[in-house]
């Protein structure tokens, strides 16, 4: 099932998107954030919290901010302190927490990043080991596309594990643990196993480990690798990417704009943070899931379909600038047209085929109906079935299964099981449907796809002229307007001093470049 589209328009969209992103790279390069600095510390091996549950990485960054000059970067201070005290970064963090050491005296010394290399290398070695383990697991995996993705969100990691195991046994390929409401605005990552969350479960490194361990056990039993997903988003975006790399998460929700639009996080903060987090995920072979599908929850899905496509182009370029391979770019889109609209299924099919046509090598993340789901769970099952047909026929990669109770609660175990059964049935029934039919060139669907593409092109033209900040200010995405001077987390953004260093990102990019395979 192939659309006839103007390939020149598609190329022009990519060129526009690249202009839009290139325009921001200088800003990103010039700045760092408190979360980027905390990420560096995590990758230097610092872990744990103090008696007040404050992570040591926060204690350290706050210490430097209060007593010295953070614009030189944490690496400057750590390199000097490690050389001088012969202590590990972890031991240094603990001493600073106990106020038995100050980093102030190192503010103006000459430093050499070489002393930090053994710590960086040891973390990278651990990440590489995880990559190798994943690869071994994946060899035994059948590659039937699409992959069935379900969420667990009980608030309690141990309950989540029960739900995840059950879903895996019912055929789920991918399990996402949704985060508790409010976590995205915390400027620290909570610690340890947690049992109390609302609408989701805290993302902590220990929760990651527990869930990965449980899923590894199921993977062995089932003879297929079950992937684990969490959210590298919010104010701690790159830190969570690092935790995911260390604990072998397989996918991360990670969008360049979502936090700005839907969480009112400052745009500079988000753009700087997403860059580092994508470099880490690219290195760790973690597939990202972008979030433009969400625009259709506040805007009409038919009228604003092109905003999703435009945003996919932008997310693609942001990922490419972070040296990410196409095969890790899970660009998002969704089945959200009002079911009362005539021919809604045809338009959905056209949109899904359009994304697939334009991003053929990206593992597209296809979201189910959510906004127009109601308390009528029986109708909901049909809405989900239509969505499943679109997903299978257009061969989407990451297939987020819709829940019949979407409008009511976060999924029960049985909701998930029914969704998995529904999808399994439709995969079978529609297996070769997509390969067997063709779009009429002047038909409703092909025309719709062309329209969406040319509207996306027009929007990308506008954005490349006005700049992304202005676009966000004008509320062109999701009809939500944000100012570059406002938003959460702006106080954590700072300009780098001329001597600033981030030795971790330098190593990651060097190694990624050696194996660079993008386009």
């Amino acid at each position, binding site marked *: 099932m192939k659309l006839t589209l103007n390939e020149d328009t598609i190329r022009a969209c990519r060129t526009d998107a690249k202009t839009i992103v290139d325009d921001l790279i200088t800003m990103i390069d010039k700045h760092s954030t408190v979360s980027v600095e905390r990420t560096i510390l995590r990758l230097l091996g610092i872990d744990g919290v103090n008696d007040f549950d404050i992570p040591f990485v926060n204690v350290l960054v706050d210490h430097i901010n209060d007593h010295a000059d953070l614009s030189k970067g944490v690496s400057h201070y750590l390199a000097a302190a490690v050389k001088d005290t012969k202590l590990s970064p972890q031991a240094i963090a603990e001493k600073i927490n106990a106020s038995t050491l100050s980093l102030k005296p190192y503010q103006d010394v000459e430093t050499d990043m070489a002393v930090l290399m053994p710590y960086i290398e040891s973390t990278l070695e651990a990440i590489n080991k995880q990559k190798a383990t994943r690869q071994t697991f994946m060899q035994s995996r059948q590659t039937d596309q699409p992959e069935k993705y379900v969420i667990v969100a009980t608030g309690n990691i141990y309950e989540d594990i029960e739900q995840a195991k059950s879903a895996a046994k019912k055929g789920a390929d991918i399990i996402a643990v949704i985060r508790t*409401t*409010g976590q995205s605005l915390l400027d620290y990552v909570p610690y340890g196993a947690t049992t109390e969350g*609302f609408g989701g479960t805290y993302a902590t490194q220990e929760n990651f480990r527990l869930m990965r361990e449980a899923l590894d056990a199921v993977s062995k039993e089932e003879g297929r690798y079950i992937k684990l997903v969490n959210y590298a988003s919010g104010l701690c975006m790159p830190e969570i990417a690092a935790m995911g790399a260390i604990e072998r998460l397989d996918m991360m929700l990670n969008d360049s704009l979502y936090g700005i639009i839907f*969480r009112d996080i400052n745009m500079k903060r988000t753009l700087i943070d997403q860059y580092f987090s994508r470099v880490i995920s690219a290195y760790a072979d973690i597939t990202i899931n972008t979030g433009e599908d969400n625009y259709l929850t*506040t805007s009409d899905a038919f009228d604003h379909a092109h905003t999703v496509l435009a945003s996919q182009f932008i997310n693609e370029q942001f990922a490419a600038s972070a040296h990410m391979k196409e095969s890790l770019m899970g660009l998002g889109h969704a089945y959200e047209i009002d079911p009362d609209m005539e021919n809604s299924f045809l338009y959905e099919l056209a949109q899904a085929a359009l994304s697939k046509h334009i991003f053929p090598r990206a593992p597209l993340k296809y979201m189910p109906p959510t906004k127009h789901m109601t308390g009528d769970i029986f109708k909901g099952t049909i809405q989900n079935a239509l969505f499943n047909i679109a997903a299978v026929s257009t061969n989407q990669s990451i297939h987020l299964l819709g829940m019949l109770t979407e409008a009511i609660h976060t999924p029960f*175990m*049985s909701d998930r099981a029914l969704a998995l059964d529904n999808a399994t049935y439709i995969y079978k029934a529609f297996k070769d449907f997509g390969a067997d039919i063709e779009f009429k060139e002047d038909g409703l669907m092909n025309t719709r796809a062309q329209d969406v593409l040319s509207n996306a092109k027009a929007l990308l033209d506008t954005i490349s002229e006005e700049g992304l900040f202005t676009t966000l200010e004008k509320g062109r995405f999701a009809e939500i307007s944000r100012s570059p001077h406002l938003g959460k987390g702006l106080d954590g953004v700072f300009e780098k001093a001329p001597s600033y260093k981030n030795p971790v990102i330098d190593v990651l990019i060097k190694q990624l470049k050696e194996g660079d395979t993008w386009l």
Partner: protein
Amino acid sequence: MALIRPYGDTLNDGKIQLSFTLPLPCDALGEETAKAFAHKMGIENVSVVHSEALSEGYSYYIVYGTLTHQVDPTSLTVTEVETTAMSKEAIEAYIDTHFDRDLVFIGASTGTDAHTVGIDAIMNMKGYSGHYGLERYKHIKAINLGSQVDNETLLSEALKHQADVILISQTVTQKDVHIQNLTAFIELLEAENVRDDFIVIIGGARINHALAKELGYDAGFGPKKFAFDVASFAVLALHEKKKVN
């Protein structure tokens, strides 16, 4: 007395369907347990029409049966917003004749809640489902603070703008997070001695008027309610309040 039972295909046949999960393996004992639950609910002729394993220790059941309980609907009372809804134009005219100034409505989606579509549906120009939002009403000044607004901020903004009406939207209800947050706001108003200075209205997909009253609010609105419903209630309540003072 007008006792009734659920309807299948014959009046008062009591036919009812249920589905649920048990923390048991899917076997004869699981099925028997499912039936026992149905019996305890007053269901007879229980038939487990479908059972399925969800995982080793969990099983899912679909059950049909005959409900023995009877209910007399005429003996029940409903907590509903009692004022009749007026049109946008009628509300504008009402404000014009009954108040000597414009009315200020301030609203937000509060606590950790990031959902804005509900409060926007009520407050923003565009409205929802073809019904304009409060922003478009003559004589109403609508201030929408957006989402993830904490209770203290909402109150201080309400005081700053000398609001007449406070609107709160709550969408996430898992583990009763909305109840905690809504209770905290009423306590805050009482602690600051300003509860009677405002008409305070809540809304959201899982909110209803009965819950609102129980929590100490003036009114609550759920799905399929629009700006004119809310504004009708609010202007009448404000006028009532003015008469009392």
